[in-house]
């Protein structure tokens, strides 16, 4: 799993690459929560274009990020969902819970 971070004005973008599974989800969770709670980023964007698999622990990490964002009044956005990622969120009935855009441009314009 590779996690790289970019900061654009009031937005932090996490570019994730690899699977978010039982092995990697703690790292994703820790990185996202640190950014939300310590950096107080008003808008956090998770770029999942290079993520081809998310398991239930990965979904749990995304839910934790969403909840932490809501608690602090910031936005938590997902972009670039693969079919597999979209399926797992749909299965969990979370597609309408998350703020989701096709790409970075749409997310930044929102």
């Amino acid at each position, binding site marked *: 799993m590779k996690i790289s971070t970019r900061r654009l004005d009031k937005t932090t973008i996490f570019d994730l690459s690899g*699977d978010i*599974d*039982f*092995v990697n989800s703690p790292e994703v969770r820790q990185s996202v929560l640190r950014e939300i709670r310590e950096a107080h980023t008003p808008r956090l964007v998770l770029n999942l274009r290079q993520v081809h*698999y998310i*398991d*239930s*622990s990965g*979904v*749990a*990490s995304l*839910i*934790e990020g969403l*909840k932490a964002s809501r608690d602090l009044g910031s936005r938590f956005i997902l972009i670039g969902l693969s*079919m*597999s990622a979209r*399926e*797992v969120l749909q*299965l*969990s*009935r*979370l597609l309408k*819970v998350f703020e989701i855009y096709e790409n970075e441009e749409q997310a930044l314009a929102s």
Partner: protein
Amino acid sequence: MLALYSSPGLLSVVRGTVERLTEHLGFPITEARSITRAVDEALTNIVRHSYGNRPDQPITMYFRRARRRRQCEEVESGLEILLCDRGPAVDPSKFRGRPLEEIRPGGLGLYFIRQAMDIVEFSRKSATNRLRLVKYLARPRNAV
């Protein structure tokens, strides 16, 4: 048959194997992914709960074609997967997911397994936990 250790790093290897196998057997790609997800979640449960994250414990997976006869002599085929571990006995009553209405982390793995498979059976024999997963191939709508 696939014999492996309970190393979390092997999960991605098994996912790749199961996805290719299910595609080879003719499952549509969406079902191939959901079966793969179910097996991955079941293995993760073994690693976490049966073996307490110890990476050197034995897991054996058996794969075979499943067949069942339905009305009018119609035969369905599919895939049967048996996952075996030597961990302590598991209380099947704890095999519960959470209501999807509750938006909170955790409790989704079992739901993914049940949603993906036609049969999910747990048993314990000879100090071995056995999880049997079966998925049948959907017949084409215009098939007679």
